[in-house]
């Protein structure tokens, strides 16, 4: 059974259509992440699910119930805002009790819930403080606490971690994941951070310019991006896109790519994608981690491996891995190397390309072939 169903949802502000027919669903207990670049309509979609924005057309169902024109308070949802939106004049305790008081929950039950949630989030020591006296991370916890004291059908998070520093963000990410395991509530989580989406979600909806580009499990989105936007958006450094031409080599399908000085390189295709292509021109998408120093021995284990010469233009060590920018004809491609076998600047590296993981895109439609 699905806890949330969004069907062909549209939203216009005046003449501007911000959401263009969104379809989405979250199964009971599922963690769905909405990702996309700034301004793609994530917050608007979330606000519409919450009832804070009106629906232009389409359907939103929570459980079985159509909630298009139900007031936010009657939708049985809880929301955590990017700004946390704590009531500044109330103490943490009052902040957390406010919702239950509004709903006339009996006093003893209020106290019991407050104690349980405060213990869960380890904010007992903060209960008497005002939001202004808390650090960013503490405020974030309180904001989650305020949502958790209710027992809603649906949790909505709007970029709850984007105001935290990098380290705290990673910690809180882990905590949210644990929390979701423990509480098991259906959650819709907006973020523009694809790592957050990958780590937390059971399914990800990638949005761009008001429509969902792909809605699938994280690994499938990563391995089989539906189009070039998704391929480029998910993963960092981004996927390399190399224009190529379908050819054959020794009777088998292959790709030809242009190198500098009119030279070309031919890469054997591992898959039988060639049969699905509608034109000879394609775009090869290859992730930085599928480029490596060519090793003839490893070739035996990785049947898709082909090799290629490329001069190294820039090397960026990050500690755990080394990012190298290499030249391929008119293009720059980015590879991700183990520091032990990282190339050095100016080196002409013999690059191994793992064609088993390559994606091909149609240059006209930009869709995956």
């Amino acid at each position, binding site marked *: 059974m699905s806890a949330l169903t969004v069907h062909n949802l549209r939203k216009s502000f005046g003449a501007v259509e911000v959401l263009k027919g969104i379809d989405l669903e979250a199964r009971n207990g599922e963690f769905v992440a909405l990702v996309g670049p700034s301004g793609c309509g994530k917050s608007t979609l979330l*606000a519409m699910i919450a009832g804070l924005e009106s629906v232009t057309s389409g359907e939103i169902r929570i459980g079985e119930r159509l909630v298009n024109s139900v007031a936010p308070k009657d939708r049985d949802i809880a*929301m955590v805002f990017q700004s946390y939106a704590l009531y500044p*004049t109330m103490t943490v305790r009052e902040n957390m009790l406010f919702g239950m008081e509004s709903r006339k929950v009996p006093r003893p039950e209020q106290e019991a819930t407050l104690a349980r949630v405060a213990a869960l989030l380890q904010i007992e020591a903060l209960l008497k403080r005002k939001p202004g006296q808390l650090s960013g991370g503490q405020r974030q916890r309180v904001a989650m606490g305020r949502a958790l004291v209710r027992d809603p059908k649906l949790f909505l998070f709007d970029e709850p971690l984007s105001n935290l520093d990098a380290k705290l963000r990673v910690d809180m990410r882990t905590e949210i994941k644990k929390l979701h395991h423990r509480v098991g509530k259906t959650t819709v989580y907006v973020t523009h951070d694809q790592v957050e989406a990958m780590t937390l979600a059971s399914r990800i909806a990638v949005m761009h310019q008001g429509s969902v580009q792909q809605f699938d499990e994280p690994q499938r989105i990563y391995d089989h991006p539906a189009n070039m936007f998704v391929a480029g958006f998910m993963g960092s450094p981004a996927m390399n896109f190399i224009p190529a031409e379908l050819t054959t080599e020794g009777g088998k399908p292959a790709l030809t790519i242009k190198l500098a000085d009119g030279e070309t390189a031919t890469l054997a295709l591992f898959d039988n994608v060639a049969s699905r292509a509608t034109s000879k021109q394609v775009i090869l998408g290859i992730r930085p981690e599928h480029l490596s120093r060519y090793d003839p021995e490893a070739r035996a284990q990785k049947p898709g491996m082909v090799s290629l010469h490329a001069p190294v233009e820039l090397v960026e060590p990050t500690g755990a891995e080394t990012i190298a920018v290499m030249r391929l004809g008119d293009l720059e491609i980015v590879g991700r190397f183990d520091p032990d076998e990282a190339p050095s600047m100016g080196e002409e590296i013999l690059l191994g390309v793992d064609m088993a993981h390559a994606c091909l895109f149609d240059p006209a439609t930009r869709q995956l072939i």
Partner: protein
Amino acid sequence: MQSVLEPSAAAAGPSWRERLAQAVPFLVLAPSLAATLIYVFVFTGWTLYISLSNSSLLPTYKFIGLKPYADLWANTRWNIAYHNLFIFSAFYVVGAMAVGLLLAIVIDQRVRGEAIWRTIFLYPLAVSFVVTGTVWSWLYTPDTGIQLFVRSLGWSNFTFALTTDRNLALYAIVITGIWQSSGFAMALFLAGLRSVDQDIIKAAQIDGAGVFRIYARVILPTIAPIFLAVMVVLLQFAIKTFDLAIALTNGGPGIATTFPAIYVYDLMFQRGQIAQGAAAAIMILAALAVVLVPYSLWLVWRKRREGKNG
């Protein structure tokens, strides 16, 4: 930040250029500072001294102690004036704030033509108290104003004569004052309401609070400092009520709507009782101080507390 900069500055010693840069604000402010000092403290001191002297038609400097104060408080008219001041201030401040807040909340619901409404309600503030008083006095006067109008509509027994009733005349001034000032209160409240983080209101909606509860528990507490500021400004408007009362009722009927400021003017310039007039002025100052001193202390306290919390 400062602690980082200081050591190097101290090591080099401030150059004359830096010194000049530091001195400029003082130089620019000096004339107005001096003027303020003279007008406020010197003249207040002078008034205080005169209020303890035996000045009558002209100021003299013979000290006679608190006698002018005793004479002042022995006078019924002064007692009524001081009493009026408190009644008026209470009703006027509470009334103007209530009406202003109500208007602000209504306009905050994103009504159509908001700018027009705002201007209309703010407009009375642009009119001087004298003009307001004169116009409203026509409205209040039975044979020219509202009474005449309603009677002309057919209700021939209708009576509306606030300003001629000694028990009600004060409230006529209160109503006029509220008309004049509630737009000002509205403008400040509206600015406050608009500054409230929209997410907080959305959070309260999701938390299941109704409109009334959202205002009472979430929005209005957030703008509490504005309430205080509006109250202080209105109170000092109230204490200086002079022109409004003069234009509207001229202190009448009888002495029913005398205010301290009117009385001071009378004593000083009509009856040649300068010492007593000065004593009355000092009493007005005392009434102002009762309001402003705690407010200033509160502001300082709050700033210090905020400084501590970073």
